[in-house]
């Protein structure tokens, strides 16, 4: 297969594109069902996120008069596209190795910032005051959680470098762990792991860090004015983002899978479930933080943990 075709397939079909979208929506369905059961509700059918998406794609799109029309309509597509690309950037051990042509960990880091930026811009482009509040909240939250994640990536890179500098390729980090054991079992990486665990719900925008889109406070902030297909694209974006971030976590901390495509993929999916369940459990077991509380929290714990993680890696 020519390399360009392989690249296209990896972005559009597997492991990005259709596969990642189906996985992301499936995880969302499980999340909603599990949360409902934990709250003693029945909950929606497992396929509800798919139904929602189909419904949204057929709905009329309303653009507010006050909105900046081109930006308002383009942003959801940019967000979804960035995550489509990002999904093809994360390796799945024994199953998928991203082509170096797509980029390394740094590219992934930049792509992961895009959804937040898109939401911020969408909030202000919508011309709604709630969008503006969502903008400022998203910005504060991003400032807070992006610094620990940089340190997390650096710590993993350093550890995989084994003392000879930093490794920037996720495939190499995964390969290093397959040779030397998972970082999950490496005490020097535990502070980094905890910092990543705090980053997860913040990046996914779930309780307690769903402040920018809090329904009861700012009426879903940036998403308030969106409807129809553009709103659907935002749902696609967040579903893909969940897959990217969870895959990244697996790749950084316990990539080992059995040989072979299907067993490898099966093991990968089995690892996704408890991580997603953890996010669900956190989301139903507490309330939302105010944005200033979340900001302080991130500069207190995850940042300190991530810094301690770097120190631990450097010392060991």
């Amino acid at each position, binding site marked *: 297969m020519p390399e360009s075709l392989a690249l296209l397939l990896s972005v559009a079909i597997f492991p990005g594109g259709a596969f990642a979208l189906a996985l992301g929506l499936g995880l969302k369905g499980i999340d909603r069902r599990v949360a409902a059961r*934990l*709250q*003693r*509700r029945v909950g929606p059918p497992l396929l509800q996120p798919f139904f929602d998406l189909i419904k949204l794609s057929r709905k009329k799109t309303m653009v507010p008069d006050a909105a900046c029309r081109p930006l308002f309509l383009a942003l959801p597509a940019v967000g979804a596209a960035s995550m489509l690309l990002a999904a093809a950037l994360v390796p799945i051990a024994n199953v998928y190795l991203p082509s170096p042509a797509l980029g390394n960990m740094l590219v992934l880091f930049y792509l992961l910032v895009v959804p937040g930026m898109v939401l911020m811009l969408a909030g202000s482009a919508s011309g709604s*005051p*709630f969008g*503006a*509040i969502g903008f*400022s*909240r998203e910005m504060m939250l991003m400032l807070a959680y992006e610094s620990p994640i940089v340190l997390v990536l650096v710590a993993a890179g350093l550890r995989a470098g084994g003392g000879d500098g930093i490794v920037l390729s996720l495939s190499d980090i995964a390969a290093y762990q397959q040779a030397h054991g998972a970082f999950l079992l490496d005490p020097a990486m535990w502070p980094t792991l905890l910092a990543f665990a705090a980053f997860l719900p913040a990046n996914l925008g779930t*309780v*307690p860090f*769903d*402040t920018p889109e*809090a*329904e*009861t*406070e*700012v*009426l879903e902030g940036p998403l308030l004015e969106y409807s129809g297909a553009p709103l659907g694209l935002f749902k696609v974006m967040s579903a893909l983002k969940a897959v990217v971030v969870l895959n990244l976590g697996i790749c950084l901390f316990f990539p080992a899978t059995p040989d072979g495509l299907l067993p490898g993929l099966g093991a990968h999916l089995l690892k996704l479930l408890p991580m997603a369940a953890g996010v669900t459990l956190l989301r*139903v*077991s*507490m*309330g*939302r*933080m*105010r*944005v*200033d*509380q979340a900001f302080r929290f991130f500069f207190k714990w995850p940042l300190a943990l991530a810094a301690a993680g770097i120190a631990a890696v450097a010392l060991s």
Partner: protein
Amino acid sequence: MSTYTIPVGPLHVALEEPMYFKVEVDGETVRSVDITAGHAHRGVEYLTTKRSIYQNVTLTERICSLCSNSHPEAYCMAIETIAGIELPQRAQYLRVIAGEIKRIASHLFNVAIQAHLVGFDSLFMHVMETREIMQDVKETLFGNRMEIGANTIGGVRFDLDADGLAYLDAQLARLQPILDDIITHYRTNRSFIDRTRGIGVLTHAQALDCGVVGPVARASGIAYDVRVKAPYNAYDRLDVPVQTGTDGDVWSRAIVRLSEARVSIDILRQCAADLPAGETGPRERQIIPAGQTVAKCEAPRGELIYYVKTDGSPNPERVKWRVPSFMNWGALTLMLAEAKVADIALIVNSVDPCISCTER
């Protein structure tokens, strides 16, 4: 950064009823609040003069569903005073039972919404599920979940036999441990406390200035409860410890409501134990003479005052009421001063505003 205006209401996911706050914000901080009311005006006060005195018992019950027992209760008390009707002993206790059941359900509803507003939906679901016990009690004893139709002039429209009392007792026994558990939760859960302590503070002095009533006043340390200060029905024979807080913040108001719900369980048990035998109401309707009076009772939201003037005709000449929310929402401007946007809905809900009562 310059200030800009955000509209909270008239229809807002966080408010159950239409109310419009024009909030001037600077970043996330509230600079000024303008409250606009009148979206739920239905002209009920005028309607009361077009209905007969007896029809108004039904009409006043429909002013608002959460206080739907307190309105006809105060109205009946006023008419009974004008007509000089002595309420039978048994009816006095039964009115207390109806009122306290409604109080528990109303308070649980409010604290549940409070949890929803801080994004703690599991707690919201749990409290609402607990409230269902009281909803079931209402449906079983009165036949309805909200408009229980318990009052009539000179008595009550329901009676409790041994089965009914046993059922009530069993449901209270079911509710009590869950409610105790919920109270512990609201007192100790970090996630809830972090969002509600020190938020929307109304100091003791401010509370006195605003003349707030009900749980809002008691959370600011004013031990004012109509059931104790001016006992009506059987409250003079019952032990009603007044629940007060000291901080006057959103958290204190939630705790006062929960403690009152807990006290209501004890009151219901006292009533069930002391329930005297006898008539529950008059056999025949009386002609209500001319006269005017004021009656008041403690609704779940606070002191509810009814003024009724009759002229000897079948219809009352004037019925006017002052609802607790009218006193409490004025204090919102003080509570919302310098608040964060994130806390607006939380603070508004903490006074438990009843818009349909206030705007009728």
